[in-house]
């Protein structure tokens, strides 16, 4: 056997096999729920780890990673499925007490055809940024993201430079270190196999597409502004996509941008997760400029102004979805989550809702919606509080007596209600499927023309607590 050496100032080491250029390598990311809040505020290993894929994606032109978050899968060599999972054994044998993770790949003719990453579930993992942190036993706490970044380097075909006589700062060195991002040497290694990613090509702003029925109205945008807390007090936004086709949406979370508009105590670094109706995380983003969707988000016209803000685009099949907003590292502050439709297919939002902690002053719960079209749109808005204390939610700290206001785009009060049963609309509300179950909760039925509207939920007599604001399309 012979060795081939390529003279270069670089120190990276190639394992000798690589994926076919142009591959989209999809991993079943099945690390699952952390069962606790991690140091960086995430509660899902998958969400915490997935930016590792984005880090590599950003620098390569001829290969991209794709992740199916929450796709539980047992890894097996030769099953043709690329998996990232926790495991207690590798092929029935133990990892050894100081092994964090193992990556293996199969190749044919130096072309990788499958890769799996196994995390040793006997190790203490967390998710955090910055220098290594150490447990009480003196060992470094495994940072799930930086370990996956390293393992994905192996999955690309990179080896350890420090195990081959090289002395270089690299995430691909054999030992975990304070380095948590790709070094120039790591990037050069990846680009030697998969070429350098070019700067995003500017694309024209999307041309508005007219609806199939110019007079039909629908909910085109929903948003909620509130004080994002921790634990049960994070911001949870729900929406239902109704129709027969998938709908393309953009979801973004603003924090620092609100500060530039004069809002104080903003959420400095929001994080966004999108869950499906089973609760599985189907997409996530921390900082919108880190990820594989940067060009599309820029082209959408809805790119956040601050790099710490979050955004993602998704094509969603009809069903119910939940967006959860947290602050990075458990931080808190006022955040705004917005959901925009990016197409004109007849599939529409039929319900929107947001749950969060209602405070006083600037910390009340504010929901926004846009009605698109020229025909009047019939809606019912609800402010739910005390009924969430009962099963199945059994939520502690609910807002005991929510008060609901509806304002138009100019800030004019359109309608208000405390206690839906005392409303002149009580009989009509009771006739719908959306009658609140608690007499202290509020509801408003409204026929709205095209335009933007704002619903505000406060506590009666400045009380505070967790509340849910909802809007239902009564025409669907």
């Amino acid at each position, binding site marked *: *056997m*012979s*060795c*081939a*050496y*390529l*003279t*270069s100032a*670089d*120190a*990276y*080491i*190639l*394992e*000798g*096999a690589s994926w076919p250029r142009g591959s989209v390598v999809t991993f079943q990311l099945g690390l699952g729920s952390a069962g606790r809040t991690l140091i960086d505020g995430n509660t899902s290993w998958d969400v915490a780890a997935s930016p590792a894929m984005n880090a590599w994606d950003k620098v390569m032109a001829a290969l991209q990673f794709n992740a199916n978050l929450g796709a539980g899968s*047992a*890894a*097996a*060599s*030769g*099953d043709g499925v690329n998996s990232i999972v926790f495991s207690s054994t*590798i*092929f*029935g*044998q*133990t*990892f*050894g*007490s*100081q*092994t*964090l*993770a*193992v*990556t*293996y*790949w*199969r*190749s*044919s*003719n*130096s072309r990788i055809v499958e890769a799996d990453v196994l995390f040793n579930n006997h190790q203490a993992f967390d998710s955090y940024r910055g220098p290594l942190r150490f447990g009480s036993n003196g*060992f470094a706490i495994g940072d799930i993201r930086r*370990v996956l970044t*390293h*393992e994905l380097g*192996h999955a690309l075909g990179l*080896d*350890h430079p*420090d*195990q*081959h*006589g090289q*002395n270089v700062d690299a995430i691909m060195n*054999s*030992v*975990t270190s304070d380095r948590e991002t790709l070094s120039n040497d790591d990037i050069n*290694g990846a680009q*030697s196999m998969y070429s350098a990613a070019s700067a995003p090509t500017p694309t024209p702003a999307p041309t508005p597409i007219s609806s199939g029925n110019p007079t039909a109205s629908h909910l085109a945008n929903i948003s909620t502004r509130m004080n994002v807390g921790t634990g049960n007090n994070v911001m949870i936004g729900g929406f239902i996509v109704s129709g027969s086709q998938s709908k393309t949406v953009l979801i973004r979370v603003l924090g620092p941008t609100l500060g530039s508009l004069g809002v104080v105590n903003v959420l400095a670094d929001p994080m966004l997760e999108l869950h499906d109706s089973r609760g599985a995380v189907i997409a996530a983003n921390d900082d919108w400029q880190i990820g594989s969707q940067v060009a599309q988000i820029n082209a959408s016209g809805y790119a956040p102004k601050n790099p710490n803000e979050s955004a993602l685009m998704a094509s969603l099949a009809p069903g119910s979805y939940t967006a959860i907003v947290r602050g990075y590292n458990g931080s808190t502050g006022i955040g705004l989550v917005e959901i925009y439709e990016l197409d004109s297919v007849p599939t529409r939002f039929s319900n929107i809702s947001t749950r969060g902690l209602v405070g006083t002053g600037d910390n009340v719960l504010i929901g926004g919606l846009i009605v698109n079209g020229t025909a009047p749109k019939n809606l019912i808005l609800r402010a739910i509080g005390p009924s969430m204390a009962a099963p199945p939610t059994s939520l502690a700290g609910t807002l005991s007596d929510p008060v609901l206001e509806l304002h138009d785009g100019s800030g004019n009060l359109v309608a208000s209600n405390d206690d839906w049963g005392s409303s002149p609309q009580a009989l009509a509300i009771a006739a719908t499927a959306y009658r609140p179950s608690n007499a202290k909760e509020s509801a408003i039925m409204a026929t709205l023309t095209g335009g933007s509207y704002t619903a505000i939920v406060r506590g009666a007599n400045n009380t505070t607590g967790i509340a849910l604001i909802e809007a239902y399309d009564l025409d669907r």
Partner: protein
Amino acid sequence: MKKLLPSLLAASTFALVSVALATTVIPPSFDDLVSRAEMIFQGTVTDVRSEWTGEGGQRHIASYVTFKVDDAIKGNPGAKVTLNLLGGTVGAETMEVTDAPKFKVGDRDILFVENNGTQFVPLVGIMHGRFHVQKDENGRDVVLTNDGAPLTDVNQLGKDKRAATAGRAISTREFKQAVQSRAGHTLP
């Protein structure tokens, strides 16, 4: 300097199917190496054999590396020891554990063994549990780390790799004395 691994260069010549693995390992300290090893010995590789084992998704290649024991340092290894490692080559197919030490007949090593037969690489700290023995320019047996760097200070193992490998390699006798000092024994 970029290096293409020789085994994979060879593989590129033929239509082979191979499997490679890589580990991320917290390097153990010298105290960890000594205390956790069930046996420590200096040996010479006399045989390397690989075969398929397991069924279904657990099917894999295992390698059996046999050493003639030249010097028992901790435990009772007997006259020979066979280590069971994950990975290897059978016919045209290879399953490679990138960080696992690669052995060939004639290699001389000092090995810190744990969980042989139940751990995918039965060495304390995986690759960190193997030290090469090599003659220096004066004909003295000296100790190198698993990646071929001269071992100069056992107290820096697992702490500062650069400090552990800066300078002149220690002799096998010095290394064994350090092991036995930690293990509570003395050399004869």
